[in-house]
């Protein structure tokens, strides 16, 4: 659990450092985009550390490729 807190603190420190530069440029869109992507990354990191099963994109990609492959073989 301590490591999860460390991960969150590390993300917050990096975000604080970089958001200062973004705020000084008065770019609201950049601020929101940065915050959303950084928050998504932080949540994902914590989930992965806690061992929560997160679905990998590799499986649906493999399934889609195999489905198309089977379909093309059927057409032949």
């Amino acid at each position, binding site marked *: 659990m301590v490591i999860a807190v460390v991960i969150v603190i590390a*993300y917050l420190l990096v975000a604080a450092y970089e958001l200062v530069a973004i705020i000084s440029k008065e770019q609201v869109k950049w601020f929101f*985009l*940065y915050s959303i992507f*950084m928050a998504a*990354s932080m949540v994902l*990191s914590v989930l992965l550390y806690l061992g929560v099963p997160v679905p990998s*994109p590799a499986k649906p990609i*493999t399934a889609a*490729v195999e489905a198309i*492959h089977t379909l093309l073989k059927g057409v032949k």
Partner: protein
Amino acid sequence: MRKEIIDTGQGFAMATFFITGSTLVLPTAVLAGQDLWLAILVAIVAAVPILAVYARILVLFPGKDLFEIMTIVFGKWIGKVFTLLYAWFAFHLGALVIRNFGDYVKITGIPETPEILPMLILTLLCAWVAKEGIEVLGRWAKFFLIFSSILVVISVLLLSNNWDIHNIQPVLYNGIKPLFGGVWEVIAFPFAETVLFTMVTVKITRRNSIYKMLWGGLFFGGFLVFITSLNEILTLGFDLYSTTYFPTYVTVSLMRVGGFLQRLEIVPAVSLLTGGFVKISVCIIAASRGIGRLFNCSDYRFIVTPIALLMVNLAYMVYGNIIEMMQGAAGTWRYYAFPFQIIFPLLIWIGAEIVSRRRNEEAVSE
């Protein structure tokens, strides 16, 4: 946005590193069996027109990247869909290269260390250089290419006393079909992955030097992949080659020269580190640019850090173990990458030619 101008030499070095990247340490063209060396040679020739299409797209719209060109050619909304797809492709490819690096380090060097640590450290370095821009990456690549290439060539030459010509004979024993499978495999990974250069190479010193940059990288990078793979198959034989996760590592561990020069496992590690560094950085820049364009942002550097960190997360979770990674690389990658590397660029090229000619005709009539 800062001007991002690179010269042909820097672009050539980046393209070479991009092609050698993780390819030098992973098995290549396994589908071609013991003829994989021949498959690599045929793939180099077959990739020439593919890379010419990438270069032509950039030449038609100087100073614009692929994301902007797609919006010009297909309009705002279809352009956005393509932008999202290519941003994902760059993001996914970057995550896979990070994973290759993590697996290599874990299996060959530091098995007790959590895999995430070397992946995170390398990615943070890549994010740093991505923030500095393509010029810095180009200068770095140009400086390091000579050292990395010399190391690869010397290690191949020093292993020549272990070669057994029977390991590649008889040529085309299984016919031509497996050879084509191998050719497709090498084109998909790594030659046509250079499509990412259309997303990062915005300005080059001379307009047509984009051809020299991509073709030069293809020929020299392809040559390095060819001599490395030929060296591995001549030294190990196909059975051992195909059952090893990192054949280059196994090959150089067999090196014995005069009883004092041996076990140069650092050579593939250096190749992977330098090539992987450039490849991951290019992927981060391409993905960040894509996200930036998707939301109409004038710069991409502000989003580099979150994209790089998300990439590490994806690299960590994308495969459960190295067996899954190898099956993914060998089994599905060439099918999955085919639209991004061949179909979409062809569509974009045709559309770009039409739009460019229409613009020229309008300019002449005015």
